[in-house]
Structures are given as C-alpha cells and as structure tokens.
C-alpha cells in the first residue's frame, strides 16, 4: 500500500515537472533561444516570443521574475527527485512536492497573467510549421485553442502528487506513533491548534480563497483589462456569474485578480513589518542601553503617528506624483509595512528583554557563544511563536488597511483591481441602490478573508500560549 503510493507520488511528480518543463525545453528549438539567453532575457524583462501575427498571443508576456523563480524551482524539484530515487527518504519527497507546488503557484500566475496556455503555446508552434513549399501545414482556424487547458492539467498533476504525499505523511505518522513519541513545543502547539475547530475552518477558508484567487483566473475566459462598454453593468448571469462592472469587465475575474493583489499586498506588507520590527526590536532588546533608548524613542514616535491620516496623505501623494498603477501596488505595500513595524519591534524587544535574563542565556554566556549565535540560535527561536501570531493577525489588518485606502481611491488604482477599489462602485448612488452585485461580492470577499485570517491567528495564539491549555 505504502510503497505503491510512494511510486505513484514519484510518477505524478515527474509528470508535473516534465509538464512544467516542456515550454522551457522547446524554447531551445524555437527561434533558437538557449537556456542562458533565456535567463538573461528574463532578467531584462524582454517579452520572450511574439508568436505569429495570426494568433495574437505572447507565450510569456508578463513580468519575468516569477518565471525565473519557477525555473529554478523546477530544477530544484528535479534534483530532489533524483536524490530521492538514490536515497529513499520521505522528507526529501515532501520537499520535492513542496517546491513543485510553489512552482505551480508561480507558474499558474504566469499563465494567467499572459492569458495564454500550454495548448496555445503548442498550437502556435504548430502554426509555424511549414511544408516544403512554404505553405503552412496547419491553418490558424484549424487550431481550436482552449485557454488554460495546460494550466488545468498542471494543477491536477500537482494536486494529485500533493494528496499522495499527504497520505504518505499520515501513514508515516501512524507508524511513528506506534513507537515512543517525543513532544517538542512545536508538536504540542500543533496538537493544540488542531483541536481548535475555528482555526481549522479558517485554514480551509483561507486555502480555498487563495487557490481560487491565484488559480481562478487561469480558468476564466475573460481578460482582466479588456473593456467592453456594450455589456457594462450587466446583471449576474450564467456567462458572468457576478455580472459585469462599469467597463464591461467580468466581475468574478476581477474579484479573483483583486484578491490576488489584496492578499499579496497584505502578505508582503506584513513580511516587511516582521523584517524591520524583528531587526529593530532584537537589536534594542539584546544590546540595551543607549541603542535601546534611541531605537525605542523612534518606535514611540512611529507609534504615535496617526495611522489612517498618514496612510491617506501618502495615498494622496501617490495620486499627485502620478505613479504608474502597477508600481502603486508596491508603494501601498511599502506604506502599510513601514507604518506597521513599530508594534512588532516593541513586541520582540519585550520578549528578548525577559528571555535575556533566563538561565539558559547565562549558560550560553558561560559557554562563550558569539553574539550572532546567541541571537539567532537561542533568542530568536523563542520569540518566533509570538511573531507568527502577531504577523498572522497583522495580515488581516493590512488587508483591511489596503482595502480602505483603495476604497478611498488612494490605494491600488484602476485598471488594476483590488477588493477595496471594486467596492468604489458603491459611490455611484444608482449602483449603490440598484446594482448591488457591483460591490457586495467584493465586500464579502474582504470580510471572509480577514475573518479566516483572524480565526487562524486566534487559534495560533491559543496554541502557542501555555496558559491557554485546556
């Protein structure tokens, strides 16, 4: 049983990876782009291949940094599989699946962004095939291309392997639990977390939303930016499940893209908060004295800044300077992150101040460990649970802040959607009263996402807090 699952996992993994790799490999024959050239071109963000004028598609049109990441992840996955075949180890297999899943996410985004699919890719390849007399073998009309087919295949393969590995892990766990079981703080927290029904519901909600937002566009036949005034503000129907917006764009598609932007903004902003906060808090807590005093005054100043007014003023500045809408998204992340770090810094500093006086730190001192070692190996790991909890709850706050800013028209700007700026439709009194499908779904999306994040954060807090034990 277990062995067959293992074999199936490897087969599906190999299939996934080869699926991923095919377009990359064919680049080599196709207008002679070598691997190195590909990578350098990706760095230069050159649109890789404009396909034949008949089929107006680009194979990989969108920004190429994610593509590069995907590329390296594929290589890593292949390496891991090869390593696994040599040395059987379930951890390696799990890592392989993890890297390939991350790669799938990136790849799916790429496919969706470029509004193309592998079927498109091969279809257009076939168009370029020419017979000896220079005539095309396949006419463009012969090739019925269904967008997103390749991506769908990829997703299916990847999820199959993911399911296999989860089954494998569960079987392993069952086997392990037969023998002795050692409890580390992390496994205890995990156990506590699993008992919390709300948190589990939150995880599932969040996972579903993320998958829908990041994968959904691949399945959608509508484009993000293409407008069609003729069908503007249409009622929900089978073709447009949530109707269309004022420019005739499919709202469901925009919701999915918007969710992608909103969630990414929240996540990156919090990552920034954690990075700056941990650094400042860690330095202040560990070194104390003058450094502590100076850094904490800075934290006090930032904490006293009125959050919403400052965010709104920054948004107004962005509107005035006429920042490119795509770059605005990054600036929104930056603003929310920079205003959010002081709380994290204060938390980390407080924790480190108490931890510094613990016996094991005296032991670390006595062993003559270096500062770097003491901070990274002994102090930071003990602060991580708190950071995780605060960061999780912070993502929800960041999403709310972003949506408020975009709602006021100062955050993510048209034509790029975010859940907040989709709700802007509400400002038209007619739409507000008569066409509720324009704004209610986006509001519910924000609400459900933030609620799910709060469920998870709450569950994590209870799980990590020894006082909260049943």
């Amino acid at each position, binding site marked *: 049983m277990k062995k067959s699952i293992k074999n199936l996992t490897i087969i599906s993994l190999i299939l996934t990876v080869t699926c991923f790799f095919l377009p990359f490999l064919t680049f080599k024959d196709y207008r002679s782009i070598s691997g190195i050239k590909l990578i350098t071109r990706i760095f230069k963000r050159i649109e890789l291949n404009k396909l034949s004028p008949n089929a107006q598609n680009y194979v990989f049109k969108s920004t190429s940094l994610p593509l590069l990441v995907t590329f390296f992840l594929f290589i890593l996955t292949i390496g891991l599989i090869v390593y696994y075949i040599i040395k059987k180890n379930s951890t390696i297999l799990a890592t392989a699946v993890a890297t390939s899943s991350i790669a799938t996410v990136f790849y799916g985004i790429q496919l969706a962004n470029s509004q193309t699919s592998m079927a498109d890719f091969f279809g257009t390849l076939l168009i370029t095939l020419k017979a000896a007399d220079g005539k095309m073998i396949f006419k463009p009309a012969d090739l019925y291309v269904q967008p997103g087919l390749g991506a769908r295949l990829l997703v299916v393969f990847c999820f199959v392997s993911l399911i296999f590995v989860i089954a494998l892990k569960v079987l392993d766990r069952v086997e392990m639990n037969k023998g002795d079981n050692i409890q580390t703080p992390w496994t205890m927290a995990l156990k506590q977390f699993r008992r919390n*029904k*709300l948190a589990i519901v939150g995880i599932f909600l969040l996972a579903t939303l993320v998958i829908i937002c990041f994968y959904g566009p691949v399945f959608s036949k509508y484009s993000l930016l293409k407008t069609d005034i003729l069908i503007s503000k249409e009622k929900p129907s089978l073709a447009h499940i949530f109707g269309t917006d004022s420019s005739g764009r499919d709202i469901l598609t925009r919701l999915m893209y918007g969710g992608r932007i909103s969630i990414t903004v929240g996540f990156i902003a919090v990552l920034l908060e954690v990075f700056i906060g941990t650094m400042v808090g860690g330095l202040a807590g560990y070194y104390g004295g003058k450094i502590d005093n100076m850094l904490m*005054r*800075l934290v*006090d*100043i*930032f*904490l*006293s*800044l*009125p959050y*919403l*007014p*400052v965010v*709104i*003023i*920054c948004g*107004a*500045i962005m509107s*005035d*300077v006429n920042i490119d809408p795509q770059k605005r998204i990054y600036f929104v992340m930056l603003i929310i992150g920079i205003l959010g770090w002081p709380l994290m810094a204060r938390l980390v500093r407080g924790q480190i101040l108490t931890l510094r006086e613990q016996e094991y730190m005296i032991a670390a001192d006595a062993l003559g460990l270096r500062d770097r070692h003491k901070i990274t190996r002994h102090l930071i790991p003990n602060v991580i649970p708190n950071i995780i909890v605060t960061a999780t709850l912070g993502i*929800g706050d960041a999403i*709310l802040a972003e*949506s*408020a800013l975009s*709602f*006021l028209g100062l955050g993510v700007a048209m034509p790029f959607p975010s859940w*907040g700026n989709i*709700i802007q439709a*509400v400002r038209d009194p007619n739409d*507000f*009263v008569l066409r*509720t499908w324009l*704004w*209610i779904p986006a*509001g519910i999306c*924000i*609400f459900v996402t*933030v*609620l799910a*994040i*709060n*469920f998870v954060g*709450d569950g994590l807090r209870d799980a990590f807090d020894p*006082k*909260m034990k*049943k």
Partner: protein
Amino acid sequence: MIPIIIGVSIIIFFIISLVPGNFIDAKASTAHMTKEQIIHLKELYGIDDPIYIRYFNWIKGAIHGDFADSFAHQKPVSTVISTYVWNSFSIAIVAFILQLLIAIPIGIISATKQYSKTDYFFTVFALIGISLPSFFMGYVLIKTFAVDLKILPLGGLSSPGSNYNGLEFLIDRFRHMILPSIVLALLGIGSMMRYTRTAVLEIIKQDYIRTARAKGLSEKVVIYKHALRNALIPIVTLIGLSLPGLFSGAIITESIFGIPGIGRIALDAVSKRDYPLLMGFSMFVAVLTLLGNLLSDILYASVDPRVKLK
C-alpha cells in the same frame, strides 16, 4: 512626551510637504486670479519657502497655540477642529458606551465558560466585528435600514430642512446617530471582548481563585467578587487608553454617513490639499494618542495597589 511630539510633527510635516501642488495653484485653476495675485498669496502663505523654514514658522506658532489658518475654511485650524470635534465626539461616546456594555459582559461570560459553545459563539461574533471593513459595513447598513426598510435616515446629523426644537431635535439627532454608532461600536467590540476574556482568564487561573473556591464560595461570588475586581484593572486602563481617542474622529465612517465630524473634514482637507488643517489634525490625533497612553499609565498606578510609583 515632548520629544515624541516634536518627532511626530517633523515626520508629518515632511510627509505633507512631499505633496506636490498647493492650495493656491489648485484654487487658481478654478477661480480667475492674476499672476500678481497668485504670487502675492504664495508669499502671504509662505508656500515657496524651503521646508525647514516653513517647519520652524509652524512650530513657532504652535508653541503659542497658533496652528495657522486653514486654507479651505479661512479660519484658524484650532477653531476648525474645535467646531467639528464635538460632532465626532457625540457619536464616538455613544459608540464607546455601547461597546463597553456589550464587550465586557460577553468577555466575562466567554472566559468563565472557556471552550464552551457560548464561548465559541461570542468569539466568532467578536472576530466578525474585527474583520468587517467599516466602509462595507456602513454601506450595507445604509442599504438595508435606510434604503430598503426606510426606517432610518441616510446620513448626516439632522434631517435636511428640518427646524426641530427641544425633544424633537434630540429624537431626530438620535435617529441619525444609530447607524454610525453601531458601525463604530462593532469595530471596537471584538478587540475589547477578547481583551476582557484574556484578562478574566488570567485571573481565574490564579491561586487565590482556587482558594476562594476551596472555601466553598458560590461560583457567582468567586467570579463577580474575587475575579472580576482584579480583571477590571487591565480593562480600566484600556478604557483610559481609548478615552482621548474618542475625540479623534473616524475618517471612513464619518465620510460614509456624511457626518460633519473632524474625520470627514480631514479627508476633505486631503482632497483640497489644505496642509495647515491636515498638519493640525494629525498633531491633534498624535497628542490624543499620547494622552491616552499617559492616562492609562496613571489609571494603572492608581487602580492597582501593587504598582507603586517611586
């Protein structure tokens, strides 16, 4: 406190001065003004001075209580703020009382019945309150109660064209305040309820509660006399922390409900590029935050006999 206020003022002043374009140019594009008038006005307001000179001028005035004149309102900033702040406060205080009345009891109940169905119910309720975006909730409430059911007014603080006196005025005012207060209260209930729950839970785990139970006291006395009194300490400091904030206005809620409060004025000031008002408002909020911190520290020391000031 004073260095922090100065630091905050420097940062806000710097951010605001990053805004390109100014009030005079904005006005000149709509109203007809001659070039001389524009130059004269710019000189009058000191718009073309370098940033540090403008900052020193501003802070020199601020020390004397003069926060410059609002461009858009043509009145001193302090007058503008003191005119509109009471509208904000009246709604905020109602919301705050509502919030206390709901959050503290349900916090206590869910702490005493930790991990029961009631606890889960209240926790979900609290988290829903935290997770709702205020603007969305505001619009949904207006849509259901004002547009569909037509039982409450759309927004504002009084019915347009009405000339009520006495009791009628109060009733009219009250009807206008229901929806915004509900929005503001719902936003705050969540965190306050969670805070109360944690505070009570922490106390319940203490030894003296076990002793009280061991003495054979009824559960009611244990919770409401022994536990609650101690749990109130952090709650009282939280109240102290949030009291000054009641004056700072709610930008989004006020602008949705069309309430002429300080938050809405600030949002208007952003679109009108009215720097003195923005600067004054931001400093006002920052000082209120600091006051809140101070108040909660003082309350903590006076309520908790274990804390002794040296």
